[in-house]
């Protein structure tokens, strides 16, 4: 499925060999017509920039279709030059350049350049012994990135044959191996190559020649986990809800009666308990989920459906009952959040709106209100933060605007001043009603909701600046929580660290060590005072999926070892380690 250059049309290649054109209309798409249908499933499509032609890749051939007439104007076999012609040659990815050159990536590991009007092969580069799966062309069409099934990506560049000469040819320039499995998707930004693999990693590899200064853009980035919350915690009931792609798991945490020194492992007196596994119906992935603080409600949403369940724990048995007559939501939820008292549910929805549902005993649900920004918004809400006293709700929409609503009178309260970065996490302090916001550029803000302005601490942080090591971190803060017993504490975590931010302590400057916990532990009590600073960072648990404070001295941390899901992956293309 590929959209045309102007974004007004959508072409969809089908299994039966047809290419369907849809018109993009406000609020949806509308079928326009079928293009010439030929035998052979369509595996990849590419529009010409002008929208006049579409090239469609199939098995053993690709064809060029004139959009206006709908006719196939050229059909080119790609398996000609191969000796082992018995094997079929799958065109996995294709691109139609504005010059009329067709670039194809096929299962023989070749990237080929064709003049489609002549039907001739201009250049052929065998980049890999296994299949080339994906390709992307830069905006200027002078560079191509190719992903292969061995996990390697290659860059091809259009370079002059002679320095200063006019004649140019494609040269394979840079090989990268960041993935262990198939590279299924690649993208080419102006300064970086982006690749996504079957090994559950997203890699951004900056092109050093395009990056002028050292900075965030100049560093290789690897993302393993989505930057969103996949675990939710029922604090009071000490339950954890894990969201998987097709099912949810509810666990009760274990407990211990022992105490010990730092680093000791305590014997649990009660083992953790797997309460229930909830499978979603149909092939759709679960998009978001949540468990209420009291642990009696569980809600989840897929791309088309929203479901709410009532959980009852009586003794050892656990029963799960679907709440009937849940108000239909179209489109369904982007984020779910229960209120602190578990009496209402906030559903983040499209166009900046937030639905408020009232939860009814013994198992019912009623639509109470829909909150919407007064100025309107085209983007969906993706993060929600209710206050503990049930007075306020903060909602972040895709345009990065943070709207604050008053839940007592269901009215828009204010907007947090705009900032040029995505919000990665936010939470409202239970006692002060200060909204703490973490942005994707690692900046932290504290906004007083009652006073509708940044707090003095936040201003102090901004004028002082955060520690450089903090700002150069890789992964964004994905969850913020507070210690109810110590209002000065803010708990944050990203994939590699958890941090207790103590507002009562001085901020570190660049000359001091940010991660100073191990140093502090070696110092005598008296000497520690001078070394203390606001960021208390623990890197013991990695990669960190979730962290929450259960009570004053109990922290729950969810680790997801990479090896865990690596072993579940299908075997990678075997590459011999021994021998030559």
């Amino acid at each position, binding site marked *: 499925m590929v959209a045309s250059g102007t974004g007004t049309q959508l072409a969809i290649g089908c299994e039966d060999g047809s290419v369907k054109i849809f018109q993009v209309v406000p609020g949806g798409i509308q079928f326009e017509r079928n293009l010439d249908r030929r035998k052979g499933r369509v595996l990849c499509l590419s529009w010409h920039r002008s929208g006049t032609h579409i090239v469609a890749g199939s098995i053993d051939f690709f064809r060029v279709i004139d959009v206006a007439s709908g006719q196939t104007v050229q059909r080119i076999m790609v398996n000609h030059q191969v000796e082992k012609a018995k094997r079929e040659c799958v065109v996995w990815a294709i691109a139609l350049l504005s010059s009329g050159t067709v670039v194809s990536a096929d299962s023989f590991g070749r990237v080929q350049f064709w003049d489609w009007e002549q039907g001739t092969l201009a250049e052929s580069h065998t980049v890999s012994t296994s299949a080339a799966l994906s390709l992307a062309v830069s905006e200027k069409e002078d560079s191509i990135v190719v992903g292969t099934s061995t996990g390697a990506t290659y860059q091809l560049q259009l370079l002059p044959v*002679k*320095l200063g000469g006019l004649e140019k040819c494609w040269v394979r320039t840079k090989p990268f191996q960041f993935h262990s499995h198939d590279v299924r998707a690649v993208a080419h930004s102006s300064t970086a190559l982006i690749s996504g693999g079957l090994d559950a990693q997203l890699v951004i590899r900056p092109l050093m020649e395009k990056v002028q200064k050292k900075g965030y853009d100049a560093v290789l980035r690897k993302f393993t986990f989505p930057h969103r919350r996949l675990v939710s915690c029922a604090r009071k009931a000490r339950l954890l809800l894990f969201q998987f792609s097709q099912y949810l798991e509810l666990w009760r945490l274990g407990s211990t009666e022992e105490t010990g020194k730092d680093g000791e*492992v305590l014997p649990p007196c009660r083992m953790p308990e797997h309460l229930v596994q909830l499978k979603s119906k149909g092939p759709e992935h679960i998009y978001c989920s949540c468990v209420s603080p009291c642990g009696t409600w569980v809600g989840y949403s897929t791309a088309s459906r929203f479901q709410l369940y009532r959980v009852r724990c009586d003794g050892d048995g656990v029963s799960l009952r679907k709440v009937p007559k849940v108000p239909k939501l179209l489109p369904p939820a982007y984020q779910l959040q229960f209120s602190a008292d578990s009496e209402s549910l906030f559903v983040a929805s499209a166009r900046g709106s937030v639905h408020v549902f009232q939860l009814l005993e013994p198992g019912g649900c009623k639509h109470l209100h829909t909150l919407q920004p007064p100025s309107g918004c085209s983007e969906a809400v993706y993060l929600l933060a209710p206050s503990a006293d049930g007075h306020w709700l903060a909602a972040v929409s895709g345009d990065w605007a943070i709207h604050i609503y008053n839940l007592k009178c269901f009215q828009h309260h204010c907007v947090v001043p705009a900032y040029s970065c995505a919000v990665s996490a936010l939470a409202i302090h239970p006692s002060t009603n200060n909204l703490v916001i973490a942005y994707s550029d690692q900046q932290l803000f504290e906004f007083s909701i009652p006073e509708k302005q940044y707090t003095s601490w936040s201003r102090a942080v901004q004028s002082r600046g955060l520690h450089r090591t903090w700002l150069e971190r890789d992964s964004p803060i994905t969850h913020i929580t507070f210690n109810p017993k110590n209002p000065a504490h803010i708990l944050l975590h990203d994939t590699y660290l958890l941090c207790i931010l103590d507002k009562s302590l001085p901020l570190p400057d660049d000359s001091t060590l940010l991660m100073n*916990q191990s140093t502090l532990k070696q110092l005598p009590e008296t000497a520690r005072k001078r070394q*203390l600073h606001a960021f208390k960072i623990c890197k013991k648990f990695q990669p960190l999926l979730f962290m929450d404070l259960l009570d004053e001295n109990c*922290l729950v941390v969810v680790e997801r070892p990479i090896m865990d899901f690596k*072993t579940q992956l299908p075997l990678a293309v075997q590459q*011999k*380690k021994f*021998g030559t």
Partner: protein
Amino acid sequence: MMLLLKVLRIWKNEDINLDKAFKATLSADVYRIHSLPHGGPVVLFRGGGVRTLDVLLEAPQQEIENIISGEVIRWSGAFMEGQQPVLIFTTEKDEDFFVYIQKPKLSSLHKYKLEQQESAKPLCFTAHITNQTVTLLCLYSNDSVYEVLIPLQQDTEEKEEEEEILSKSLLLNLSVSGAVLKGTSLVVLDKDHVAVLGSLAIPGKEPRECLTIWNTKFQTLQTSKELPLGTSGQLWCYEEKFFLIHGKVLTVIMYKCETSSLAAAVGKLKDSQTPDVSSFVNWNTLEDEELVVSFQSQKSVALKAESRMNLRSRRSTVPEEQPKTLSVGELLLNLKDASTYVLETELKKLMAKAPTPDLQATIGYVVTALTDRCKKNPKYYPRNFLQEIAETRDLSYSLCPDLMAVALEKKDMHLLQICLERFPDIPEEVTYACLKTFLSMSEAHLQKIDVNLDSVICYIDVELDNKEFKTEIVENGFSAEMDQDMCDTKIPKENQSRSDGESCPVGLQKAALLNAILHSAYTETFLLPHLKNLPARQAILFLRYLYYLYVKCSEKVNTTLPGIRSPTINQIMDWMCLLLDAQFTVMVMLPEAKELLSNLHKFVRAQVRFYSQLNKIEGSLRELQRLNHLRESQTYSIEVLEII
């Protein structure tokens, strides 16, 4: 115009009737009339007197002085020096040769005596004037060409009675690999080239008459053309054409001279030139040649290796640096004629300057200047200085394209080793030339040479005659017994132990040099055609050494050789494949290669089996690890965490 000793006849251009001629009878015998561009004809009399034609025609019967007494004119030539005609002639008297230089308009006369040469006398002369200096080339009967430099003196006060003795220097020895050219005529073609007509005497064969072109810069025979019908022994040359009498016809041969370069001199230019079909000589570039040469060769290297990104980016910075490099170029131009000592100290000073962005280019020019001097002066070779530069600076081949050629010429193995290890962009042709030189050098000679042995010292057994079998358990799946088990041909046991890599087939020095070759960068496509030319004996020796390295590598678990800059297994394998590709037919035919190939085959087969077993084990272990992890993954713990 034509003359009969004393009678001068003059014809007019327009009148084609030969009977109609102006006659004048002179008072003395004429030796020759020379015509000069932009100056009238000059008449040389037997007695050594010289008159311009205008003066002579005014009074034909005027008395002509007799300058030479008892001497016979052997050769004469006329030139223009500024507006002045200059006439040079040589005379002979009792084994002594004299040179006269006359300026008829200034009536100045200088007489010199040529330094005597034992048991040889001049056969032929030729001369040219550059920068107020007459360069007289003499072909001697001892098959050598000598050069005599005579300054043109401006003073016209008096004719010096006392004759000066001119010293000569050897320019060229007309001998090619044992064969000697008995020259009869000599012609200068350009600054670096002379043509000699003569008969080539190969011992045991009948002498054959040849026209030859020699490069005086590199002392090499550029080309030769056989003239089987015999010649009169005379050779003339006008406007890039040779005129000679071949048999009964006057033969005209066109020639063109390439700008003299070492590559051309040693026959490594792409198309070797023949005198009648060739490209042109660029006379204009003969000044400031070194800069031109280096730029041209850079270009040709660049064309060869289009994918070398580093080169491209480096060259792209050249235009910005132009103003600076020019000044360096000027400095080098000034130093061109300085003495060796001055040159070296100046260059050292230049290099010691604080690093500037164009330091690389500067050093490139410095090295080019040095190599140019080496080429001009065969005796000059600053071995240590060049090695020091190559070792301490990040040079590349394209920066100083002549360096390796000069090192090859001078057989400076150590410098070649350094270059091969350090230069990223050596053309395959040069790599091959080095390989061939290394392989062909005798071990005895190499033992005297100082090369860096770091890459070999750790794995080559120094005692070559230690034939004991190793009793330790050999790692990595290969042992001699295993090899013998699979050996089903009947090769005597002692024979096998010698050739299966137990002892190194080459000496330490040669091994170190060959390792440098293995380390150099190359492109298979360009190297392969050269490797095909490698003589079979050398190819086998090289293959034997590669086989030895391969066996040595495989003895270790990590398949790497110890030591600094020792070759990696991939380099060894690549070269082995390349060599076999290039020489396979030869190898198959040669009986002495048969045993080596069969051993190699067996060894490789054993390795392949071993690795396939390893891969199987790896697969099993991976599966075990996977199962293990699945069991362990459900972990839960309650820990105490103190955050201060």
